């Protein structure tokens, strides 16, 4: 029984243990594991972002010389370009710091983040650096334009210049219906610059059509050069913008706001593409590098491959890999003609590829089968798939894709929107649900006043069938095609009215008149129709009235041109910030460069001073041990002042001298004399003129101490032993004279030893006296012994000056290692006498 109970208890205990393990211990361990994982994730992120910040700093330092170099050689645009790159690096650095100190950890742990700036961004910026800011002599100038910068050449071999049109050109643009253009791009193909004829032909193929919709403002073909002018859109390419968006987001993909922004760019792009297609053109080279983001809007640029949709030419494989439909390549290889296919669908494919690249921050290497790995709403995935599907399966037109993307943008939660709710899946595109791209602002922005083909008039709430965009060829309504019936009013003048079966002419200048007949040409910035329809209706006016109206129109055009010119000048100043102003990046580069230069200069000067002082300490006797002595006699003779002058004036004086002069109240500036007391007697001495200058004045009341003595910067040539046999027996004048000469000797670079009380002085003097013994300064044998002692290899002296009683004081015995030095010192003593 007990055994049974024990077994039961054991079983219960085991069961309890299992329950505890399963429900308590395991979860606890799981939580601990999660905690560890979270911690290591944090550490990993910290390291990655720290490395990224260091990398950004390194990249910034790499860019600074480029900015300076380009400023030196006068390439302002290039300097601005690199300055912007520095700005980017600054931003990257700031973001990394933010993530290190405040943000969430990143995933990467390797060294790659540190190097990504140098490995990727530097080569990219180098590749995109503009060339010369001026066209070469071979290219020549462009009449009516002032070149202010350049852009990197694309694959077409053309040179791209940024230019400002003069007033005449501005007025011409305004008359063309493109006002407000203050800056243009000139794309120039010069045979002398290496462009080829096929390139010129390819570029000029769709030029007229492009001009018609305002993409090209002007073009010119000469024997050697072909160029055309386009509006300039400053900004960054979509590729760069995409990279930044991804850098700002977490690593899993774009966050909601940035994804919405990215989709918005493609939405803009589709508006533009729709305008191309309506005009009967096909861009053929849509890719992120050809899309410029300016003021939050995407603009499509580069007309290099623009082709008429109805072209009779054979399809070519031109375009950019991964953004070019593989089906197009197949067709081109089969020799299919352009007009046999719907080229607009290839643009749709490329737009889908652009959307893919925005979402993935990569390119669709696998065409329509490319995987979307990053976080992305299902509806956007669907749009990407649909636009990159096989030729027959993809969106029939840019309209459908536009409608789908608009639905995505309008959705409060993009992730909640299912593909089934997209207009193209529901069974058709609801034209009333969005602004039809036909008459929208983008169209007007591009068309810039050019006539736009008739707008389709879908009934409200009626889904539009998935059909290709309307033919670019203007099709009149069936009623308008019938032969008009006219009723003559006056046989003599020939005036007439439309017959009763023709619709009455519409009231002029009605706002909705355009929509009524499906025709609405716009003028930029106003609702005024480009064509005054009242002119063509009804009986013809008299010639005078027509002339009057023509003059009114001309005046109106002139006024508009004038207004456009003024606006352009105003805008130019505002927009100058992009290229011409010193951008913060350039400022940072200049600041760092100047700071480094000044710091380096200071460091060099400091180093030099340090070396000099060290040398002086090593080779010279410390100044405090070598005081300048002076007395009344030296003052009276003026020798003191000469010495003082040689030493650099009062500023370089020893503090003892300054103090002595100050205490003596020596200075009387008005009379130009020095006055002081000596043994109770007042002595007045005329001061030299140089002492009376303001710089040399001594203010005895000032607390400012003179600068520490700075000895003349004379290289030390050696030490000279001075043996003064006169000693204290000499009068003061002689002593002063000797002292002055020794100072001059020092200014020549010879250090006098033997007069001090140091051990070395005593040793040297004793050694010399030992050689002299009882000899005199005139004794040749004594002189020979001294010379021998001087030549001794252990002797540190350069020479000996023996002021002896045996010789006149002005002609002491001077023995030097070099004969030349000997003569110079002899001259010094004689001269000073």
């Amino acid at each position, binding site marked *: 029984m007990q055994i049974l109970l024990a077994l039961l208890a054991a079983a219960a205990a085991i069961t309890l243990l299992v329950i505890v393990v399963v429900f308590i211990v395991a979860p606890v361990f799981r939580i601990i594991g999660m905690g560890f994982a979270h911690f290591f994730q944090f550490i990993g992120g910290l390291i990655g972002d720290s490395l990224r910040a260091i990398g950004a700093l390194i990249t910034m330092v790499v860019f600074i010389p480029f900015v300076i170099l380009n400023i030196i050689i006068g390439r302002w645009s290039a300097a601005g370009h690199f300055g912007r790159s520095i700005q980017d690096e600054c931003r990257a650095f700031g973001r990394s710091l933010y993530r290190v100190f405040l943000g969430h950890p990143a995933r990467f742990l390797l060294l790659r983040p540190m190097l990504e700036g140098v490995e990727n961004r530097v080569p990219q910026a180098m590749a995109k650096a503009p060339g010369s800011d001026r066209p070469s002599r071979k290219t020549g100038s462009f009449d009516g334009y002032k070149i202010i910068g350049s852009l990197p050449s694309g694959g077409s071999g053309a040179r791209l210049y940024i230019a400002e049109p003069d007033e005449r050109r501005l007025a011409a643009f305004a008359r063309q219906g493109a006002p407000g253009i203050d800056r243009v791009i000139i794309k120039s193909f010069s045979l002398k610059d290496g462009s080829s004829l096929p390139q010129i032909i390819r570029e000029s193929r769709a030029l007229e059509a492009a001009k018609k919709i305002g993409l090209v403002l002007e073009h010119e073909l000469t024997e050697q050069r072909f160029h055309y002018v386009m509006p300039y859109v400053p900004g960054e390419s979509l590729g760069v913008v995409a990279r930044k968006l991804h850098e700002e987001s977490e690593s899993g993909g774009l966050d909601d706001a940035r994804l919405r922004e990215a989709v918005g760019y493609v939405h803009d792009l589709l508006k533009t593409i729709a305008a191309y297609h309506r005009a009967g053109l096909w861009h053929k080279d849509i890719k992120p590098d050809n899309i410029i983001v300016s003021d939050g809007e995407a603009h499509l640029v580069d007309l290099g491959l623009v082709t008429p949709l109805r072209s009779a030419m054979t399809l070519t494989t031109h375009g950019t890999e991964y953004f070019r439909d593989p089906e197009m390549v197949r067709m081109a290889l089969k020799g299919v003609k352009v007009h046999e296919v719907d080229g607009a669908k290839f643009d749709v494919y490329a737009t889908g590829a652009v959307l893919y690249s925005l979402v993935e921050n990569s390119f669709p290497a696998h065409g329509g089968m490319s995987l979307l790995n990053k976080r992305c709403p299902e509806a956007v995935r669907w749009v990407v798939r649909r636009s990159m599907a096989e030729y027959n*399966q993809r969106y029939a037109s840019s309209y459908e894709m536009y409608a789908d993307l608009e639905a995505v943008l309008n959705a409060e939660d993009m992730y909640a929107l299912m593909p089934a709710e997209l207009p193209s899946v529901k069974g058709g595109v609801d034209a009333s649900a969005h602004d039809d791209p036909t008459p929208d602002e983008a169209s007007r922005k591009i068309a810039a006043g050019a006539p736009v083909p008739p707008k389709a008039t879908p009934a409200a709430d009626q889904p539009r069938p998935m059909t290709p965009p309307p033919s670019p060829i203007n099709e009149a309504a069936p009623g308008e095609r019938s032969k008009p019936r006219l009723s003559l009013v006056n046989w003599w003048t020939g005036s007439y009215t439309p017959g009763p079966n023709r619709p009455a002419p519409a009231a002029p200048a009605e706002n909705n008149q355009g929509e009524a007949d499906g025709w609405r040409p716009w003028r930029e910035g106003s609702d005024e129709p480009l064509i005054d329809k009242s002119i063509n209706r009804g009986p013809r006016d008299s010639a005078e009235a027509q002339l009057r109206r023509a003059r009114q129109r001309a005046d109106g055009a002139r006024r508009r041109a004038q207004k456009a010119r003024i606006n352009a000048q105003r805008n130019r100043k505002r927009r100058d910030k992009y290229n011409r102003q010193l951008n913060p990046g350039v400022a940072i580069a200049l600041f760092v460069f100047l700071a480094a230069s000044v710091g380096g200069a200071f460091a060099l000067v400091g180093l030099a001073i340090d070396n000099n002082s060290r040398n002086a300490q090593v080779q010279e006797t410390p100044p405090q041990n070598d005081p300048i002595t002076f007395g009344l006699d030296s003052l009276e003779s003026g020798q003191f002042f000469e010495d003082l002058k040689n030493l650099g004036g009062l500023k370089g004086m020893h503090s003892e001298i300054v103090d002595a002069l100050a205490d003596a109240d020596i200075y009387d500036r008005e009379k130009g004399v020095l006055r002081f007391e000596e043994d109770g007697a007042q002595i007045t001495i005329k001061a030299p003129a140089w002492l009376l200058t303001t710089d040399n004045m001594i203010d005895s009341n000032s607390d400012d101490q003179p600068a520490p003595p700075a000895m003349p910067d004379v290289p030390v040539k050696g030490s000279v032993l001075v043996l003064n046999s006169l000693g204290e027996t000499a009068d003061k004048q002689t002593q002063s004279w000797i002292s002055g000469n020794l100072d001059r000797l020092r200014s020549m670079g010879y250090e006098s030893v033997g007069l001090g009380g140091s051990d070395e002085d005593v040793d040297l003097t004793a050694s010399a006296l030992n050689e002299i013994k009882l000899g005199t300064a005139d004794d040749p044998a004594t002189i020979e012994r001294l010379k021998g002692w001087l030549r001794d290899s252990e002797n540190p002296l350069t020479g000996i000056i023996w002021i002896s009683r045996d010789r006149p004081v002005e002609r002491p015995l001077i023995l030097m290692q070099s004969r030349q030095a000997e003569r110079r010192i002899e001259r010094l003593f004689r001269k000073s006498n």
Partner: protein
Amino acid sequence: MLNNLTTNFIGRLRCRDETAWFELWETFGPVIRAQLSKWGKGRIGSETVRDLSQETLAALSNSIDTYDPNRGARFSTWLLAIAKHTLGDEIDRRMALKRGRGVKALNLEESWMYADHPGARSPDGEYEAAVFRAKVEAAIRMVERGCDFTDFSIYRMRVLECVSGKDVAVRLGTSEPTVSRRLSKVRDLVRERLCEVIATYSFTEDEHEEAERNGLALNPTNADDALFDEAIAEIYHTQQELRRRDQAAMME
């Protein structure tokens, strides 16, 4: 066993049919690049790999007339041999440049074609597996091009992205039976296209049996469908990984 499709493809290549060459490039280009990268690791960069893969096809176009499937060598093996020679030539050229003199390029050995040649059998099992995956991928692309977009989207979500039938139905606003029915339709199409592709690019019995060995029963029962889908998804994802590496190399 040879069939018309096989003969036709080689025939198209021999006739310099550009679409056939593009098809070949599209299907086997990544496999060749991956193999060249593997062989030349550390010695050649991604740009050189791309150049060499194109030179391989150029060399193939020069010698395609000498290719004889009756000798028993796989086309893929032959392609690999050419790629190996191209890489060898490049390495020789670089070495010769170092020595300061030119060197004559090696001739292409036709012995690779013989089945009894030791190198004629799978010289690199991984490569042969990649070639097979490329064939499956080509079949999927053909299906994508051939069938309705919505049908293929269902197949993509259901099989390749492993989304449940219920979720697919919600996303597309349809019912689960419809999803199931359309999925079945596309699956049949995949089988059909796979047969075609294997017949087009395979030349030996061994190659024809490859599908069965990899879990892709071309004449299946209903019970095989799940296995078939699973095998397709696995091959597709492996191939995507190859593409991803190829893409990453290009972006460097």
